[in-house]
């Protein structure tokens, strides 16, 4: 398979009052075309910084990153932000059509595409509602639909379900698996949750505590299509536990750093 994302020795240093802070340290990663990679690490390990570098929002202090396009007519990458990043001043329809509008797609065409995605995420009745009328889970669906409607080659997901309650989270994990399996786009998925990464990912990359860098990785062997049922399988629990044992060291280090 072709390489889609190649990051080499990425380091990001932020200046601060107490001297420079290393947000990401010498991090390298290759992602194949069509692969679903989850990045798991303790808080403050720089996983969000890495995603923002991929998303073009942060320039690395050193190192090299390359996203390889296949089709220049579609956007290369888009970020699925957390739910509070949808625009409160736009209706659900205009939020979902946002990327298309920025690319100059005609009103009729972008609304047609947006309506299809709104329907796929189960919000057909709320196309003309404003975000303040929606619950957290519904807003997150809008955020997901906004990225899918723009049809980028790579989806960058920044803890998209992190702010949701546990039950809504399970429902949306299922929807995300279903949407992704239908599209097979390249995904880099940042999460705190080991179970979420095992359920969704083809590969799980663990990061160390601050200053964050690559620690180890796991291949997820489970067949697709997957569903929540998988979380009841003994192999699922075994893999999750193995990952936790590695991660726990880093989480404890993070807690010591903070105290």
């Amino acid at each position: 398979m072709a390489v889609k994302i190649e990051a080499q020795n990425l380091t990001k240093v932020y200046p601060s009052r107490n001297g420079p802070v290393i947000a990401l340290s010498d991090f390298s990663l290759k992602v194949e075309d069509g692969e679903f990679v989850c990045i798991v690490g303790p808080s403050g390990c720089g996983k969000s910084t890495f995603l923002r570098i991929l998303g073009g929002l942060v320039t690395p202090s050193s190192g090299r990153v390359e996203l390889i396009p296949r089709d220049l007519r579609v956007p290369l990458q888009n970020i699925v932000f957390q739910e509070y990043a949808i625009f409160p001043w736009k209706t659900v329809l205009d939020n979902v059509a946002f990327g298309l509008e920025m690319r100059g797609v005609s009103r009729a065409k972008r609304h047609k595409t947006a309506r299809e995605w709104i329907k796929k995420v189960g919000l057909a009745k709320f196309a003309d509602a404003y975000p303040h009328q929606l619950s957290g889970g519904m807003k997150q669906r809008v955020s997901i639909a906004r990225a899918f409607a723009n049809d980028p080659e790579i989806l960058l997901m920044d803890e998209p379900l992190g702010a949701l309650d546990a039950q809504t989270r399970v429902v949306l994990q299922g929807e995300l698996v279903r949407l992704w399996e239908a599209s097979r786009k390249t995904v880099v998925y940042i999460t705190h949750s080991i179970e979420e990464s095992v359920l969704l990912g083809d590969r799980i990359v663990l990061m160390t505590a601050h200053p964050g860098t690559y620690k180890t990785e796991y291949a997820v062997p489970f067949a697709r299509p997957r569903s929540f049922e998988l979380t009841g399988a003994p192999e699922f629990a075994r893999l999750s536990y193995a990952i936790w044992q590695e991660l726990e060291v880093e989480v404890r280090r993070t807690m010591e750093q903070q105290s």
Partner: protein
Amino acid sequence: MSGLRWRLDPGVRDRLLSIGFPLALIALWELAVRLQWLDERFFPAPSAVAVALWELTAKGDLLGKLWLLPGLIAAGDWSGIRKVFAEGHLWVSLFRIFSGFLVGVVPGIILGVIMGMNRTIRVALDPVVSAIYVLPKIAILPLVMLVFGIGEMSKVVIVAIASFFLVLINTTVGVRDIEPIFLEAGRNYGANHRQMFRHIIIPAALPIIFSGLRLSLGTSLIVIIAAEFVAANYGLGYLIWFSWQTLLTENMFAGLVVIMILGALFTSGLQALERRFMPWQREELPASVDGVDVRGTGAKC
């Protein structure tokens, strides 16, 4: 008997109270003057104020000699038509407020957005803006008159200056306080500069820009009345001042009533604009919570 009060619908009860209590106060005032508890040279009865208001209108002081308009329009006498409005205190004040407001607000919003977005410009201009902002604008009226003369221009300019700084400061704050994640989302979805302004920066800052507009419209009213006290031959401020000098207290109160009505109209006009430009802020019950329709149940407000 006491049960009746509590059986009233709370909405109806609130409305009765909010209309009834002021009416009762006016009635009390009227009574107090009639019984000579209040000196009517200082506090004319509400009925006398109403009569004064009617006479000011009928004689053409307040709204100009409107009855001349049909003839003037038929004759195509434009300067005559202008003169009718130029002799009505209300129109004169309104013209000064709105032209000054517009002249101040448009550059205030533009510079505010620039200061909000550009750190260099903000750091350079901030001390100057803050210094002028704290100055009561009426204090520079003599300076403005020195530069622009004692005609209409100086009144428009003083209102423009007052609204400019209020809108400028609010717009700057509104733009600076935009959640960075909205800007990131805009950039990540490929918005160019123009699109960032139109789709993200302006709508995100709009609520605070509007509170700046509200403040500056109120301040415009204060500034223009004060300016008309000292340097005008027409306008509501002049009407009040002249009535004081000639001890026509009924006319003075009539002027106050007109200003109160203006203030209320300005406020509701701006609210209507806010609803028009910010439909997403409309107070509504959430349409649903995760697919369960709660409309009308009042749940989860």
